């Protein structure tokens, strides 16, 4: 009989990191397929290129620091998909390359890789792109429109203003509410369909892949605040268009709940969601960009460990 040495406990649940990553990828894949119906196969090509770039960057990182191969942990695929879905469909490929490289090298590898990054890599990448190339990131193609699949020539694409652009200008978006809900308005590639994103939220919450408290607290606070302080027109129309436009729902489901950058405690998570909602409201209202959710998210990422420490300092910690 061969004996093996270790310390207790001697059994494992068998839950693995890759399983939850796979669920995230499935949900992001659904959002991608939905967007392909609006914009054609170009988006799929974008996604594949983005995944290849991210995985390649991961390989370079693991080669440089001689760590075990981190390309296998699937987190790079999640980052790549989130970046593609947050960018407009008609975006030049070099922009995707820059965003991916920034996310993997600067936002993740520099801090020590998966689990040690203080800021959400995809949020960092989008924030970086927003600051450097705002004209590309807020130029949304009209819907539906079949984009050229491989061609770099995007001169024939027609562009329209997003809901948030109208709100920012102080007016009401001239779109039907149902179009806003189903994402049939000019917006970022994968962030359109509110129904699909809410379904993803329920699925991921039931599977305990994401902390539902964060998303719920964030969405509730945001809806409440945007209804109480409408930007234009009737309060419920303003609130509805704020919630179902921009990155809001998408980020609430996929980015805010990123386990490594959000608070781990329940109470911390709720406070985090509330603070993030307030930050997004303020940034959308007083920021210079029409959608500044990524900046708000990065600020909130920074306070996440502090929130956990504060929760730990509560004397009766049976939370």
């Amino acid at each position, binding site marked *: 009989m061969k004996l093996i040495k270790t310390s207790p406990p001697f059994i494992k649940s068998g839950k693995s990191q890759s399983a939850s990553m796979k669920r995230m990828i499935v949900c992001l894949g659904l959002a991608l397929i939905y967007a392909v119906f609006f914009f054609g196969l170009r988006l799929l090509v974008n996604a594949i290129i983005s995944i290849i770039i991210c995985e390649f960057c991961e390989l370079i990182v693991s080669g440089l620091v001689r760590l075990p191969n981190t390309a296998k*942990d699937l987190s790079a695929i999640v980052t790549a998909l989130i970046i593609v879905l947050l960018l407009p469909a008609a975006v030049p490929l070099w922009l995707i390359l820059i965003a991916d490289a920034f996310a993997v090298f600067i936002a993740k590898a520099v801090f020590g890789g998966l689990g040690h990054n203080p800021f959400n890599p995809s949020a960092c990448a989008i924030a970086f792109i927003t600051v450097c190339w705002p004209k590309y990131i807020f130029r949304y193609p009209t819907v539906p429109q079949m984009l050229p699949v491989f061609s770099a020539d995007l001169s024939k694409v027609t562009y329209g203003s997003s809901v948030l652009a109208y709100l920012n200008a102080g007016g009401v978006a001239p779109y039907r509410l149902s179009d806003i809900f189903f994402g049939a308005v000019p917006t970022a590639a994968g962030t359109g369909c509110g129904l699909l994103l809410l379904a993803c939220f329920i699925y991921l919450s039931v599977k305990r892949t994401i902390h539902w408290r964060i998303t719920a607290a964030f969405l509730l606070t945001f809806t409440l605040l945007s209804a109480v302080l409408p930007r234009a027109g009737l309060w419920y129309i303003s609130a509805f268009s704020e919630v179902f436009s921009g990155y809001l729902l998408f980020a609430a489901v996929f980015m805010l709940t990123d386990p490594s950058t959000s608070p*781990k405690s329940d109470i911390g998570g709720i406070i985090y969601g509330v603070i993030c909602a307030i930050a997004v409201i303020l940034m959308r209202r007083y920021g210079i960009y029409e959608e500044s959710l990524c900046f708000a998210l990065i600020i909130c990422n920074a306070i996440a460990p502090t929130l956990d420490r504060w929760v730990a300092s509560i004397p009766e*910690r049976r939370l």
Partner: protein
Amino acid sequence: MPDIRGRGIVFRQRKNSILTAPIKEYQASEHLSVPISPGAEVHFAIGSKVTQNELLAVDEETGINIYSPCTGILDSIVPAEHPLLGNCDLLRLTVAGKTELRESVQLKLGEGMLSYQDIAGIIDTLDGKPLAHKLKEFSANGIAVLAADAIEDQSFVCSENGVLYHYYALVEEGLKIAAELCGIKKTQVFVYYRRDHSETELKFDSSITVVCGKYPARVPFLSINKKKIGFISAQACYDLVKLVRTGEQQLSTIITVAGHHITKPCNVRVPVGTPIGEVIDFCEPDNSPALVVIGGPMTGKYTEDLTTPVYPGMGAVLLLEPIAIREMSNCWGCGECVRCCPQGLMPLYIARFSRHGKLSDCRDFGALHCIECGCCSYVCTGGINPMSFIQSVKSQLHSYQTTHRAKDQPKRRHPLSSDSPEVTAHLKEGEER
């Protein structure tokens, strides 16, 4: 029926078939090694003949009487390391035939005649402490309810449950005797059972309180309705009845032999001092690489030494599937450990800080509240063992406190010193558990 809502984990119990099968008997092998503490006084010279049920040694320090589990010859006394007892001496006995218990040994007991001295041979299988000591402490501490504990919430382990299942009447009688002895009026029997995670359905007597929460089940049960509960094991109750009725001391103990690599898992009655290797062979292991674990799969102790003698309090000997433990750098912050921790701690932060040697941060995150249940390591999706880090932090914090206390001046109170009310409360809480 008390149920524990909230945190913890649930796993497959894998023990009903073991539980319901009759308890097997394992006959004494050629050699037994009875563990005693180094300070114990041995009543026999090496080479002399000993009889079964005869007083072998008396341990003054702990007050345990050790009785010979077999008739035979005392070969030698060798120092050894036991996973449960630490440093100890082994009394090596060569078995030479079996004798019936002599009539003269039988206790003549009347009403209220039983004393703590009479039961000094019984060791509580819950924690390996002498039963007499525990009962004395209970009556001194104002414990209101004496409970027979068959709350075995870990998978595989079911030796206490097995005793309760097969000898319920005796356990109840033993519990009453013990309660009478220490002057406690109320008794209760606890068993852990989850219908949804068991293969077959079991029915328990209506007077048994069924605990069916998550693992770890014992934590919130130290007091119910503000009444303090003292736990003794079901096996100790059974042994107590046997002692009172027949005069037979605790010469054997019931352990569960199970695990992924045991083909015939069962509860088996083994003489104290039998090497665990023999018991494992009795239950027919397959020959694949395995982990030998003494105790439960979550909190047990690992051993490499198959000659380790069986001792009351082991609970189980398990042959488990080896698991791979990865480095702390694999933590990706999923927070599963935070969600399952029954104490509401954040194991990943404590483990991270301990890796960087930040002791005060570990204390801020409540490392001293850890009950070492192992939930965090069980659920870890990164394959890490955070509990091992927390354990080391706890021992470091405790040693820091003791050294600090010696240096500290009486007036200045350091937040970490044992004098501070908070820390004392922590320590007391830890001891109670």
